[in-house]
């Protein structure tokens, strides 16, 4: 009798599980409006990932010449450019970059003045406040300090589960690279609002920022191709570094911690076996 009941229960469970999975299958793939950004092969992906210094330097050049006209990056100082695990500038080079900037300050009489930047200065903001920033394109351009971690796209089930194992953490730079190179003419049936710009990857496609980069716009000294495709990857990598400047240290320490933990766990396993062998 109990066994029968048991079997019935199992049948009910299986039926419920099947209904659940069917429901999941039948459900529409929630009207995916924009395509997923293509996966870029990043040098900083994976357990041994490191930033590509040349790429960060190229990305910084784009930030300096193009992005910084509208976007602030206020969490970073010029000195950060010389930090270990970053773009690989020397301290003198970082100092020289800073010296090119004019920093608003007060002189010793309390009068507003402009002076040359120093390594300890934060990158200056292009607008006096958010209202002034919003005046140009209707929306204040976001600060770029954490932007690469503040942007992402939905991976959905079951991909987000696999991501935990494959260490896919680069949704942010993937999205940014796709976004910068994702400007297109809108499809005929798409009504683009006044002042909007059509972008394939932007949620809703209507983005306030006009296409920021054109082929050949920024001159590279290292022979890398001067194309939108290359620019967008370089600036995305640079923004990832700006958002996560300790990534290289983190992954390096992580590997050491893993070796320690695996040895410790192995030793504990055999100790446990030995101790318990007296009881069983």
């Amino acid at each position, binding site marked *: 009798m109990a066994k029968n009941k048991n079997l019935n229960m199992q049948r009910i469970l299986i039926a419920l599980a099947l209904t659940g999975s069917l429901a999941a299958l039948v459900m529409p793939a929630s009207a995916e409006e924009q395509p997923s950004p293509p996966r870029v092969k990043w040098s900083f992906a994976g357990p041994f990932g490191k930033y590509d210094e040349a790429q960060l330097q190229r990305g910084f050049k784009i930030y300096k010449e193009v992005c910084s006209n509208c976007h602030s990056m206020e*969490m970073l100082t010029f000195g*950060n450019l010389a930090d270990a695990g970053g773009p690989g500038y020397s301290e003198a080079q970082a100092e020289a970059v800073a010296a090119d900037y004019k920093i608003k300050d007060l002189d010793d009489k309390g009068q507003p003045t402009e002076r040359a930047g120093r390594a300890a200065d934060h990158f200056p903001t292009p607008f006096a406040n958010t209202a002034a920033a919003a005046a140009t394109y209707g929306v204040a351009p976001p600060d770029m300090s954490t932007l690469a971690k503040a942007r992402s796209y939905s991976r959905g089930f079951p991909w987000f589960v696999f991501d935990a194992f494959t260490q896919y953490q680069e949704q942010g730079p993937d999205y940014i690279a796709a976004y910068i190179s994702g400007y297109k003419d809108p499809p005929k049936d798409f009504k683009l609002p006044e002042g909007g710009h059509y972008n394939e990857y932007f949620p809703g496609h209507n983005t306030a920022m006009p296409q920021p980069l054109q082929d050949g716009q920024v001159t590279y000294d290292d022979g890398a191709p001067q194309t939108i495709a290359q620019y967008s990857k370089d600036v995305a990598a640079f923004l990832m570094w700006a958002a996560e400047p300790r990534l290289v240290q983190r992954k390096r320490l992580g590997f050491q911690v893993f070796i320690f933990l695996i040895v410790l766990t192995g030793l504990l396993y055999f100790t446990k076996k030995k101790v318990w062998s007296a009881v069983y």
Partner: protein
Amino acid sequence: MSGPSIYQPTNRAMQWFEKRLPIGGLVHSSFVVYPVPRNLNYWWTFGGILSFMLGVQIITGIVLAMHYTPHVDLAFKSVEMIMRDVNYGWLLRYLHANGAAMFFLAVYIHMFRGMYYGSYKEPREVLWILGVIIYLLMMATGFMGYVLVWGQMSFWAATVITNLFSAIPGVGDSIVTWLWGGYAVGNPTLNRFYSLHYLLPFVIAGVVVLHVWALHVAGQNNPAGIDPKSDKDTVAFTPYATIKDAFGLACFMILFAWLVFYIPNYLVHADNYIPANPAVTPPEIVPEWYYLPFYAILRSIPNKLLGVCALFGSIGILAFLPWLDTSPVKSGRYRPIFRQFFWLFVIACIGLGWLGTKQPEGIYVILARILTFYYFAFFIIMLPLLGIFEKTRPVPNSISESVLGGKA
């Protein structure tokens, strides 16, 4: 469980001290000679893991508090400065943020284990209720800690959750204003959350002491769900439980380290790297994963007041579990029907967690309602009735029989 202390220090200084404050004897009787059932499996290592995680959270938290600024204009920046300029600040912060997630993962396993093996039943009712109190305190602490980051998700989570209290008829709005310390989530809110986020972990630590005390009075439950009858049924806490707990903890730490060092932002919503902005509502407001099932329960009910009641009821009902489960048999091992309803309950909780990430529309609402119904039905209908109608399998006579008998 533990008899009079047999602890005899050989060191003269220790003897002198022991006469005046027998703390060595307390540790000796509670964590060395203390008898534990010999059949405890690895699900029982999560108690030790939880104590460890509480320690990690308190230590990393104290250091983070030295560098954090609880002010609406500076909070987000100070967190970023911790990540960039404080020596190993990124490590402290990622340990603390992912530590919260690991803490909740461990507590859910610990709770499901308690439910499966009937650890809440006589004489462990108080032990269980103390656990429910710890869990509630953890939820409050975790929520307030998440707000301190002062990103978009922090701000809007604080707004949504505090607004729940506005559902209380008559005085709801006054209570919300009182909670905020103003007419919106703002600086006073952030300051009080910071104060409470620092206080509550020590309250948790206090209740954990009571929890362990109650545990050592009643003794541990075990997979067979029967009390130890002779010395053959138990082993000494040290070295047996100690080494097993240490191994379990080391495995847990590998998972923890994976999160911290390789995928530290896996569990974080990207919007929380955007500074809080009261003028911009994010397209979706999603809580941390460990609150998702309760969020789904809240949203599955169209009436706000009833939804809030269901939310708090879904946690509160846990405290009544010892009396809702009427079966005399503790362990799910010997309860074939209960076992199936139990796993269905686990699936329902995970399903609700998944639905918590979905917009409450269409099929998702229907699914959330079915699972919410099952969540409550499990406690109110299945458990009381199973005690009456379920035909349980024979329970072994002793723990040693259940362990060694199966092998022979």
